[in-house]
């Protein structure tokens, strides 16, 4: 993918060129939004809104990491959504249990069950643990640790994405990791075997 060429074409109004960029970054954008919002529907809406915003603001892109620029759009959209949710908190509708008709407390019906049941269970527990601990983080810490540790972005890209100095990225990341470590200690027994063994060795 010739990213600079596609960016230039998109800036000149070529929607197809922009859509090729969307396809390249939509998984990362959705995953970031999902980790930030902890809701698949909200994450999908946020990712779509972010790409629309990115297309409209494409003339503001002045070079640098396009991935960081797109992730900044996603992060800002998620911040807006989180602020909106704080103003107007909503309660999601839980699906009903087919046996007793009671509401399920967790949306297990959404889990992808293509892998083996054991793998699925471990993955889901890990996902729940990580998501739970991420939700307790302040927003500015959450975006940094997701981009670095979940998305694998480097510090410079994150600094561009959040428009903060490199030192701020390092500081926020360290504090976020420390908080996550303390939080995840309550989930060690639920984590996959390799993580449990390492933690047991530490203790």
């Amino acid at each position, binding site marked *: 993918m010739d990213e600079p060429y596609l960016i230039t074409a998109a800036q000149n109004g070529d929607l197809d060129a922009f859509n090729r960029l969307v396809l390249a970054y939509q998984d990362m954008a959705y995953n970031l939004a999902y980790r930030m919002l902890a809701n698949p529907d909200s994450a999908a809406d946020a990712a779509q809104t972010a790409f629309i915003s990115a297309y409209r603001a494409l003339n503001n892109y002045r070079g640098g990491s396009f991935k960081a620029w797109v992730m900044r759009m996603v992060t800002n959209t998620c911040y807006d959504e989180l602020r909106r949710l704080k103003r107007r908190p909503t309660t999601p509708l839980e699906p009903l249990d087919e046996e007793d008709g009671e509401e399920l407390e967790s949306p297990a019906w959404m889990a992808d069950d293509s892998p083996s049941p054991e793998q699925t269970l471990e993955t889901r527990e890990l996902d729940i643990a990580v998501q739970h601990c991420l939700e307790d983080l302040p927003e500015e810490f959450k975006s940094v640790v997701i981009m670095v540790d979940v998305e694998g972005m480097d510090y410079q890209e994150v600094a561009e994405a959040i428009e903060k100095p490199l030192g701020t990225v390092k500081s926020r*990341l360290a504090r976020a990791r420390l908080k996550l*470590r303390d939080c995840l200690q309550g989930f060690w027994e639920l984590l996959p075997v390799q993580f449990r063994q390492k933690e047991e060795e530490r203790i």
Partner: protein
Amino acid sequence: MMESLSPHDWQLISTALDGQLTDRERSDLDALLHKNPAAKTEMDSLLRTRAVLRAAPRHRAPRNFTLTPAMVPQKSRFSGFRLVPALSLASVTSFVLFLAMLFSRPFLLGAPAAQAPMLASAENASDSASVEATAPIIIYNAAPQGYGVGGGYGGGGDGNDVAGTSGFTIITPEPTLPGPMEPTPEGPVALKSLTPAPTEEPVSESARGYEKPAQSTGPILGIRPTEEMGIVNLDEAMSTAEPSAPENGNLVSVLQWVFAAAWILSGVTAFVLWRKRL
């Protein structure tokens, strides 16, 4: 152990996990690990935390987020943002011209020139005032009714002046009346001719032998034309007092408004385009 590590120490440990340490930070970390061996344990714990986060399942996009033309307005190849410098320049220029017109208005209106005729009239009035002592001012209110031969269309020199339907006509004798206006022992000829003794009955115009002196081109009964006699018709003076002055004032006002409108319109447009980054 944890209490012994400062936030800076944690930042060093965290950054070391990603290999993003600078040379100075690396030496600081080495010193920390040498001084406090427990820091190595904390580094391992953070390393596991990072491993858990990286092992978290990645959620794929449930659908494509590609855009359709209906979702976004088609981008125009013409970018209004490029007009911002030109509009800004136009706005500044209009503002400067507006200020120039505002402060130069008195000069553009030419106030001294506009007042000149009135000043001239005032001077004439003062001149005539100087001779009031020697010659009386004759004032006719509207058209005088002439009775008798001497009074018919009195003033006679210029029937239009005297026959005016409104206003006053001031006859100010010149300080020195040349020629036929030389004073005589009986008194000024003009006064004699202009102040005849009324007759018992008005004489009909046909009896006088002429219908109406529509125009008078020369002195009648020794009266010189009004211009030579220094007669000033106030109505004419007022009506002919530099009519271009108010026109200039209107033009200046119109230009001021035009420049003000151009200044505001171009400035607002430039600001809007700059904000929208069109």
